[in-house]
Every structure is written in C-alpha cells, then in structure tokens.
C-alpha cells in the first residue's frame, strides 16, 4: 500500500515508529496529485512548498517524541476556511485574490498539532450547491466515475480523500455539504452538533446552519479529527461551552440493545432501488450486531427543504452583503458608487449565488418577512421537536444520506429544484442542529458508492460514532478504493 492511501491512525504508527518520515508521506501525496489532479481537480490551491516546510517542523516534534495525533499528517482544507497568508477563495471570483490576514480556529487547532496542509479544495461557490458544478473555477470529478459529480458543496475535499490526494480533509455542512459528497465518494463524512466546532474563520453561508466537520477514510479518523477541532472557542459566541470528550474512546463500544430509529418519511415509494436495498441491508447488519430497529416518525420532514431554502438564503443574503468591492476581493469599475456595487456583484458572483441572494432578500423584505422567514423559523422549531420526540424513544436514527448515488455532471444544472432535492435527507439535520455521519454502505449497480446516514442527539456524537464504527468493522465497504 502506498503511504498516501493510509489512514491517519495507520500513518501515526509508522511516523511515530520512525518507519517513515513526514516528507515521504508528502512525496506520496504530491505524486498522486501530480498523477490524477488533472482529471479529478479536487483542489483550487495546492500548497506544496508550505507543506514541505511544515513537514520539517513536524519531523522535529516527532523526533522529540512530542507528536500529536495529527503531527505530520497531510490534510486538505475546503477553500471556505481562512488560512493566514494562503489564498482563500470560497470558489468565487469575488474572492479570487483574497488572502486572509488571520487563521480560522479549526486550522489553527490543526496547526497547533503541526498538521501538513496539502492545499485548499474546490467547492460550490460559497458552499451553495450539491455537486461543485457551482464552483467559480472548475468542476471536481468523482474518483469512482469521472463522468459523475463528487457531490457538494465539499466535493473537492471528498474527492481528494477518496482519490488519496490527502489523508483526511475538512469540509463544511450547511444542508448536507459534508455528508452528501462523502456518500457520493464512498468515504466517511461527519457533521458535528451545531456549536460543537468553532465557525471562526469559516466564510459564512448560513450562520445558524453552518458547521465544520471531517471527511475521512474511516470512522476512527473522523473521531481523531473531531477531537482536534471540537470544543468551545471564545471567538465564536455560538460555539457551545460544552466539554468535548475523547471521541475515539466511543469506538468499539457495544451496540447491543441500541435502539435505532427508522424514520418512515425517509423511506418512500419510488425511492432509488439501489439506495433502498443498501440501506435496508445496513439496517439488517446493525440488527445482527444487536441493535433494535424501531420505526419512528418525523412528521414535518416534508417542509424541511422549503424552510431550509428560506432560512439559509435569508442569512446568506445578509452574509454575502460584505462582498461589495469596497474593501477587498474583486472590484468592477462603475461610474458611481451604485454602479460599482452592481457591476462588482453582477460579475463577481455566479448564477446560483445570485439566485440565493435574491431569494433571501425577498424572504426578508417588508411585507414578506412574516409569511416566509418567520414561518420558516416556526417550521424549524417543529422539525427540532420532531427529532426531540424521536430521540425520546431511540438512541440513533438511520436513513440514507442521499436519495441516489452520484449523478452525472450536467444532469441537474438546468433544474435548481432537482439539485436542491439531492439534499432532502440531510437538510433537516442542520435545521435541528443535531450531529450526523455518512458512512459507506454499499454500491449502486453502476458501481457508485452509497452512503448510510446515522443521526444522533445534540452533543451525542459518541453514539453516532460508536454505531458507525460497529457497522464499519463488520463490513468491507470502506476498504474499497476507486480504480482511478
């Protein structure tokens, strides 16, 4: 096995035992990037020189027996997390020259462990999309089938992990943007509880929904990554003052007697047969491990997509107001202030971003606020209650991550609503703020990965991860690699 194909846990041992050096791991990663990046296009910026410099530092720490779990591990970061002195574009032309003078809290924490930043990954512009086709620069391809999308918006991070162009990655998830691409690329993707991970330095899409999480090759790596990034941050008022446990300790715990809820609204007539089969198979497998399936209902599920697209776009319309050409980023000329504003935003933003800004602006407008924004907030409360009710009887919920396996590039670009519906199973989780993971649970007839979603109570990532780990240990799905 090549070094770039290993996991964090696997590399840690080799590095600490001095069997390999960080720079050798980087050699393998960058060789892989040289070989396939032209096809996959996971990255927007590759930070090779900085990574090799960081590797020297990491080596010193390892030699001094001061290695942390991520010391010398090559990790890719979605390009919406600010990295000091390194281009951070959000895959938008409007930020195509933006170099932050500050570091996001998550990357600062990774940096504290002397991780190696491989580069900044592609995404849908401002994380708005489900395929990376909305990137202002290029579309990333699914390593399992380069005619297909990797999912999105963290498609670059997911593809980079799946294609072994890094060992692990960070993504962000506003309505499924970590879990859906993880599902499409056959890897593990975790969206922590809202407030578990600091959003400081994450370029905001929808502040009340955004959450950073890991994309990894297995559940253990997800736990290792979460250990580093989780915990209260005084720079983010919405990060919860809740002590983060050692998530790796949850792995390997028994799931005997664990009550797993099957929400009936997520298994409907006419759903994709491959997905249905794979997920039912996974439920049977969990049952065979001692878990007890219980049918539950999340009755307001049908309103989730509508509520989400009002709330997320409302917040986005305000969050993206700062890109006005005045202070940083792209500026188009104009004969006066108003024209400069309009030209800058018309030329700087892509079509989907503009569509969402307009939707959100409309929803917040005088006379419409009550009918849209306020109503959507009420729906959000009901959806939260749905989850609270379900979790009064079960420990974890099991659903498909996405309604289908990866779709073909261009298949949904002309129909935004179809694109929005690809997040139908993930959106409610963000509205409720609960944690959820996507893990590989099978393959479609076309040979594309299918993801299983496990959803937990607020701040109970441990039950989610222990269940995911138990399932992963009893299957081989996660071990399959794309034949790229």
């Amino acid at each position, binding site marked *: 096995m090549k070094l770039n194909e290993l996991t964090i846990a696997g590399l840690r041992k080799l590095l600490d035992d001095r069997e390999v050096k960080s720079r050798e791991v980087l050699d393998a990663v960058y060789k892989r990037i040289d070989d396939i990046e032209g096809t996959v296009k996971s990255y927007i910026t590759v930070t090779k020189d900085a990574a090799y410099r960081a590797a020297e530092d990491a080596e010193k720490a390892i030699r001094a027996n001061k290695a942390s779990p991520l010391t010398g591990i090559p990790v890719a970061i979605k390009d*919406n*997390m*600010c990295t000091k002195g390194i281009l*951070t574009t*959000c895959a938008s032309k409007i*930020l195509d020259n*933006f170099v*932050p*003078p*500050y570091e*996001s809290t998550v990357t600062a924490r990774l940096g504290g462990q002397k991780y190696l930043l491989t580069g900044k990954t592609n995404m849908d512009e401002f994380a708005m999309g489900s395929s990376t086709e909305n990137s202002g620069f290029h579309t990333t391809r699914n390593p399992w089938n380069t005619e297909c999308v990797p999912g999105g918006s963290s498609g670059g991070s997911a593809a980079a992990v799946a294609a072994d162009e890094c060992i692990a990655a960070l993504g962000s998830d506003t309505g499924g943007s970590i879990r859906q691409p993880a599902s499409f690329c056959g890897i593990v993707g975790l969206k922590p509880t809202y407030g578990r991970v600091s*959003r*400081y*330095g*994450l*370029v*905001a899409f*929808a*502040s*009340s929904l955004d959450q950073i999480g890991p994309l990894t090759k297995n559940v253990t790596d997800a736990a290792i990554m979460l250990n580093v990034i989780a915990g209260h941050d*005084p*720079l*983010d*008022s*919405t990060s919860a003052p809740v002590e983060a446990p050692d998530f790796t300790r949850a792995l390997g715990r028994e799931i005997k007697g664990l009550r797993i809820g099957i929400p009936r609204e997520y298994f409907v007539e006419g759903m994709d047969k491959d997905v249905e089969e794979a997920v039912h198979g996974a439920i049977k497998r969990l049952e065979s491990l001692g878990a007890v399936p219980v049918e539950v209902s999340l009755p307001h599920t049908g309103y989730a997509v509508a509520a989400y697209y009002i709330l997320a776009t*409302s*917040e986005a*319309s*305000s969050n*993206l*107001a*700062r*890109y*006005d050409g*005045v*202070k*940083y980023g792209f500026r188009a000329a104009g004969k006066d*202030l108003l024209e400069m*504003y309009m030209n800058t935003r018309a030329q700087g933003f892509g079509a989907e971003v503009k569509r969402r800004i307009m939707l959100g*602006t409309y929803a*917040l*407008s*005088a006379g419409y*606020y009550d009918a849209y*924004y306020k109503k959507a907030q009420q729906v959000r409360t009901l959806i939260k209650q749905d989850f609270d009710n379900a979790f009064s009887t079960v420990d974890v919920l099991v659903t498909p991550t996405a309604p289908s396996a990866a779709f073909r590039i261009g298949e949904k670009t002309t129909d935004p609503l179809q694109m929005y519906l690809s997040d139908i199973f993930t959106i409610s989780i963000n509205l409720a703020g609960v944690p959820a993971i996507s893990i590989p649970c099978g393959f479609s007839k076309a040979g594309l990965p299918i993801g299983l979603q496990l959803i937990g109570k607020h701040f109970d990532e441990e039950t989610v991860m222990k269940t995911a780990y138990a399932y992963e240990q009893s299957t081989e799905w996660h071990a399959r690699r794309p034949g790229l």
Partner: protein
Amino acid sequence: MSAQETFGNGKYEAVIGLEVHAQMLTETKIFCGCSTKFGAEPNTQTCPVDIGMPGVLPVLNKKAVEFAIKTGLAMGCRISTYSRFARKNYFYPDLPKGYQVSQYELPICEGGHIDIVVDGAVKRIGITRIHMEEDAGKNIHESSSGNYSFVDLNRAGVPLMEIVSEPDIRTPKEAAEYMRKMRSILRYLGVCDGNMEQGSLRCDANISMRPVGQKEFGIRAELKNMNSFRFIEKALEYEINRQISVLEEGGKVVQETRLWDSAAGVTQSMRTKEEAHDYRYFPEPDLVPIEVTQEWIKGIEAGLPELPDAKRERFVSSYGIPEYDAELLTSERAISDWYERAVTAGGQPKAVSNWMMGELMRLLNEENKSLEDCLLKPEQLAGMLKLMDNGTISGKIAKTVFEEMYRGGKDADAVVKEKGLVQISDEGAIEKAIDEVLARSAKEVERYRAGDEKLIGFFVGQVMKAMKGKANPQLLNDLLKRKLQ
C-alpha cells in the same frame, strides 16, 4: 395648554420625539478588542472583525451591556432579562459588513422617562426603548483625490446606545432641555462623554404638526444632523414653521428625512418615504441571545451614582441654597463634586455657590477650560472664605486672591502673604492715612460737610488707594465718618 405650547397663532401643536445615539465610553469596541479612542490615524484602530472580513465573528463586549443597563436603570426602564441582536441590512461604504448589528424586536431596555424643567415646571418625557448597536465608519470625500473617496473604519464597531423617546415633546425648547438632561445623566453615569461636536452624542428628531385638540398625529418628517443644543432648537423651530405653512396653504406634509443645514438655517429633503431603505431586519445568527440575571441588574443598580434630580433636591435641602443654584451646580457631576468638596472643607454653602457660579465660571469660560483642568482646588476656595470670615482679607481683596489662586493653584494664605494682601485693621495706620487724604482734600471736605454725602465714596477710594486696598473696609468707614463729623 399654555400659549407657549402652540404655534401658528394658537392653531397648531407640535408632536416631537427624539432618537438619541450615544457612543458608549467603553475602552474597546462592541464586538472586538479594538480601541474606541477618538482621533487616531484612519484605519489604525481596526481588525478583521470590524472591517467585515470573510468568516470573522462578533463577540459581545459585556461592558457595553452593563452601560446600557446602567442607563436604563437611571431612566427608570424595565431591563429585559432576554434580549437579542438583529441585523439591519443596507449597503454603504462605511458599513463594512453590509449590515449593522443592532437590536430590533427585543431591546435591552424598555419603558422609562426623563424629567425636565421648562419655565419652572417639571415635565416628564417618556422613554420608549434603549437598544445597543454598533457605530458605522466614516466616508471621507476630498476634492484633491479626484474620483476617489476614502473610508475610515476606526469608528466602525464603537458601541452605541440608541435612546428613543415617546412623542411627548411639544416645543423646541423642551427638546433642547431634554437633550441637556440626557447629556447630564449620561455623563453622570460615565457611559458617554456627551460631546455633540465630535458626534459622540447625536440626535435625530421626528416632528409632526396637528391642529390643537386633535388626537391623531400628523405626517412626520425626520430631522437629522443637529449637532448642538442650539441647532436642535433652531431646526425644530424652522421645521414647525415650514410644516405650518405647508398645512396653511392646504398642502400635505410629506413623510421624509430632512437634513438640518446650519449654515443656511434651513432643513432640506434628503430622501422621501418611497426612497427609504427596507432594512430587512432579522435576528443576528452569529450572536446568542443576551441573558441578563436579576443578580447582575441588582449589582449594577447598587453601583449607580446619585443622579442630577436627586442631587439637586439634596443640595436644596441640606445646604439651604436656592433651587436655581442647585440646578446649575448639579448639571455636571464634576461641578457638583467640586462644590461638595468645598462645602465639606468648611466653605459656607451659599458663598461657595456664589464664587463658583461667578468668578470661577467666568475665569474658566474666559479660557474655555473645564473644571477638570482647573488648578484651583475646592479646599483652597474654602480656605479663602475662612480668611474673609476672620477678617484677614476683605471681599475686594478676595477677588484678587481668588484670581491669583486660580492661576497658580496656591493656597489663599500663601497668596495673601506673598503679595502682602493682609487686611490692615490697625486704627492708627488707617487714621494716619485718612488724615493725609483729608488734609489734601480741603474742598471736598467742605462740600461733604455742606451736605454732599455722596463724597464719602471718594474719600474711601482715596484712602484705599493710599493703603493699596488693604484697609479693613468696615473700620475705614467708621473712622472716616467719625473724622468728617
């Protein structure tokens, strides 16, 4: 309704409400650690947060909440134990995020009042709400820079309180009085320096006219840019006359925002209702709701200073000074503190008041100085009054001594000794001087004795001049009269 409260020959009544913006005197900005100091080089007191860079987040300055609560308590407001921030969305270069973080549906304080005194009568003006928000930056337009304008974001993120009054104000004079009282209270609390010229205290007014007796409000105009008490009064007076002429001519007042042009002495339309922004307020998702415990409120309440109204009443009752003196002496905390120190040091209350409001204020005003930079200490004034009481110096000499003390910050004793200003009460010395004056003023003595008693002043002046003003005036008078008989 008194005549002073109506306009247009008694036909109309004005309905005025004020929105006051007060910059809070916190060390740091409301959502980041940058300094709030005024007057630094442009953009030197900024960081990624107040510049509105991508991905940064606000962290609420607890001191700003404390100041808002303090102000609310001083104005008799209900303090919300649960309140939250909202975003007010609009595009402007001095607004880096494209929205201002403010409060909308759930402000920190609601329902209160300020009592003002106009023409001797107390009037209560209701406070609708007090909310916290961040200030914007400043656009700088320089003709020398051609097609460019500049933005200074030092002020962006400085904490503000917006204090909204009920439409209880009826005259420009009441409005100005309300602002004076507002400024006084804010300065007493130490939450705002009240500098209207530098803009740390700003005021917008909503004003409409209605026929006397009508309950419904008329259509209002919003006035901006009135940066002094005088301009508030002038702008409102102008606006009252303008709206009355519109109504008298059978027209309708347009709902609009108007700017006060102090040079031209007029208000001018800035934007109409149709052009008004739709601010698209919604709850700020980057900040958690503000929860204030009763314990915190009680703690702040316990630390409130004595406020102007209470202090005024106490000055009248414990020092026996007139209401008028007490009002002036309590208008500023620094003045009232100075006064009390002088009285505590033994100064007779009315005498201290007279010296402060007379000589001291005159000298300070001459130099445009404030009490804080005054070299003369209150204890020194008390010392001087003692010298007057025991006859060491006369009232006349005291003026000289006072000015000397004011300039050099020395004690009265020292000044008197240094300048040899001790009053002469030695009868022999005074008699000698009197004799000399009378000897060389034979004509005047004759006229006096013939009945021109006004000449007594002439003799006193001559003797005083001869004795360099140091003669005990009482003694001099007595001796002089005796000699002239």
